């Protein structure tokens, strides 16, 4: 087997706050192979965006401590100098941001911003070439009339168009790894599908691996093969999309699935939201962080309350749960 493109080992991210240290990510590990798409899902505050930002060391201006290993092509990003990381950013790894309305610099034309992204990593490019590159990028991401649009400012574009430009900026250097942090959350539903298609197309063209951060399970099913489910700063399940959605091996994943409606579900079945809300990271419950919201927790003699579950193989998936697999699959059948 070839070495993965990205290999994250025991990632811990701690923020220093007035109320003490907050551990937003606690021991996350995963691999991404070249050209592969994986999804990281979870509720707000589960640590998925923090994980994404840490991959590029983008936790700008905050009092933050990142530990563990992030190996990109075998080189540890966390051990690099700031200057070395800078050379990687936008070049070998790029990011698509959540809100296209605020992600573009309002003071420069979009052409200028795309060209800048290229020029940073190709310093001796002539102005004419840069313009040509920006023009082609705009064309590739499907901006109509690129000749005219290239000299316009971000505020002259719609949200969907701006996200296309953000994508153009991210892909102008054909990065090996593309991190998409909730790229469709801020967009209209009709535009969401277009943007996802575009990310898929671009991935094909550039051969980039994609880490898609989202809380939208529909999006996950649509474009990825592997999914990491995060809860309270930990990965609780790692599985192929078909396994995770067909036979989830963690009660939290099951809960997520039961709280969305699918087209083929019976009109009269009610959605089953997960009770309660995600725990505060400052004051995590003991044992399994999910136990206060887990409907199976009581069936195990207090193990869930006292012991943090380790990741273990369950069929083809990995899951961090004390519960025997059979119990979960039984209940899965019950609900269907």
């Amino acid at each position, binding site marked *: 087997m070839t070495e993965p493109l990205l290999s994250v080992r025991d990632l811990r991210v701690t923020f220093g706050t007035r109320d003490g240290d907050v551990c937003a990510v606690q021991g996350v590990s995963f691999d991404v192979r070249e050209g592969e798409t994986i999804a990281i899902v979870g509720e707000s505050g589960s640590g998925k965006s923090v994980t994404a930002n840490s991959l590029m060391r983008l936790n*700008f201006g905050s009092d933050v401590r990142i530990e563990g290993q992030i190996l990109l092509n075998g080189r540890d990003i966390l051990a690099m100098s*700031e200057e070395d990381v800078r050379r990687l950013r936008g070049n070998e790894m790029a990011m698509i941001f*959540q809100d296209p309305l605020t*992600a573009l610099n309002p003071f420069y034309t979009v052409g200028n911003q795309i060209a800048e992204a290229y020029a940073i990593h190709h310093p001796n490019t002539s102005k004419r070439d840069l313009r040509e590159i920006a023009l082609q990028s705009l064309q590739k991401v499907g901006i109509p009339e690129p000749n005219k649009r290239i000299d316009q400012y971000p505020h002259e574009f719609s949200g969907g168009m701006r996200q296309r430009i953000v994508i153009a900026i991210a892909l102008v250097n054909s990065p090996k790894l593309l991190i998409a942090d909730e790229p469709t959350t801020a967009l209209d539903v009709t535009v969401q599908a277009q943007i996802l298609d575009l990310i898929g197309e671009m991935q094909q063209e550039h051969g980039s691996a994609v880490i898609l951060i989202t809380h939208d399970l529909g999006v996950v099913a649509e474009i990825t093969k592997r999914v990491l489910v995060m809860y309270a700063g930990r990965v609780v399940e790692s599985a192929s999309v078909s396994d995770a959605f067909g036979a989830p091996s963690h009660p939290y994943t099951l809960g997520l699935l039961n709280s969305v409606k699918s087209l083929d579900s019976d009109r009269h079945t009610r959605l089953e939201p997960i009770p309660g809300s995600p725990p505060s990271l400052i004051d995590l419950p003991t044992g399994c962080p999910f136990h206060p919201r887990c409907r199976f927790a009581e069936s195990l003699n207090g193990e869930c309350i006292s012991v943090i579950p380790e990741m273990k193989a369950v069929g083809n998936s990995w899951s961090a749960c004390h519960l025997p697999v059979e119990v979960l699959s039984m209940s899965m059948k019950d609900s269907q």
Partner: protein
Amino acid sequence: MIFFVLRRSIFAIVLLLIVSAFTFWIFSALPSDPAALTCGKNCRPEVIEANRIRLGYDKPILEQYGGYMKGIFTGRTYGEEGAAIHCSAPSLGYSYDRHECVTTLIAKTLPVTASIAVGAFTLWILIGVGLGTLAALKRGKWQDRVATGFSVIGVSFPTFFLGLISIMVFVIWTGLLPFPQYSGITENPWKWMTSLILPWFVLAVVSAASYVRMTRNGILEVMNEEFVRLGLAKGLKRKTLIVKYVMRAALVPIVTIAGLDFAFLLGGALVTESIFNLPGLGKLTLAAVINSDLPILVATTLVAAVFIVVANAVVDILYGYLDPRVRAK
């Protein structure tokens, strides 16, 4: 863009007309009689009445305003043949108290005020924006504390207090500087410098204080913007990111305030000029208030208004140039 500038300029002219009419009306509505001021204390009513007619104060206010406006463009002759005094265009009136054309008085005092304003403004922008940027970049460190401490002290000191203290320290106690005695820059540049250096610093310290806070907060706010994070994610160097992304965005609102502050200062630094014995517009205005010298008051008010209105227009046009989002409308 040309349309924007054109529209903004027309608006400024209309505004100036309104301001001038309003100023003129306010001062003629004052209870003090301008005609009575033209001859000494023991004046016979007949003389006052004659002067009133001679000066045109008996005419309806609109006609007086018309004459005044006409004088600005064509010049104006006050009084009759024998004792006639001609003030050439732009004539802003004649001061009977000082026996001089108001325009001449303003032409004498304005360079003084301009010298104060330009020097102080340059200093305070340098200090204010410089310290503010430093404070933001070193947030929470000692540089930040020093800068914000300076800003609190600067804000709490009134100009006159700081002015008097600085004269005491630098002129009287240590003798580092001679007592301020203004001289034109062309006549005696050294004397010009030494007379202005204290007022520059005093005004700069007092005004820079708020600029420190504005700059600091502006930069910190912009740093949290998503587009700055995108700039970082692109691989921009920290320095480029700060200058091209953060400062660029943070300084736009400061330009607006700076422009207006500068214009306000050009209208006369009343307190500073009095303390440092500088014969500028502010001192001229102050003397005119004490002597009820209406023609001067109308003129200095108008001049100050012109500065503010022009600065407003310039700032608006500049804003449109700096921020593409404004240009669009």
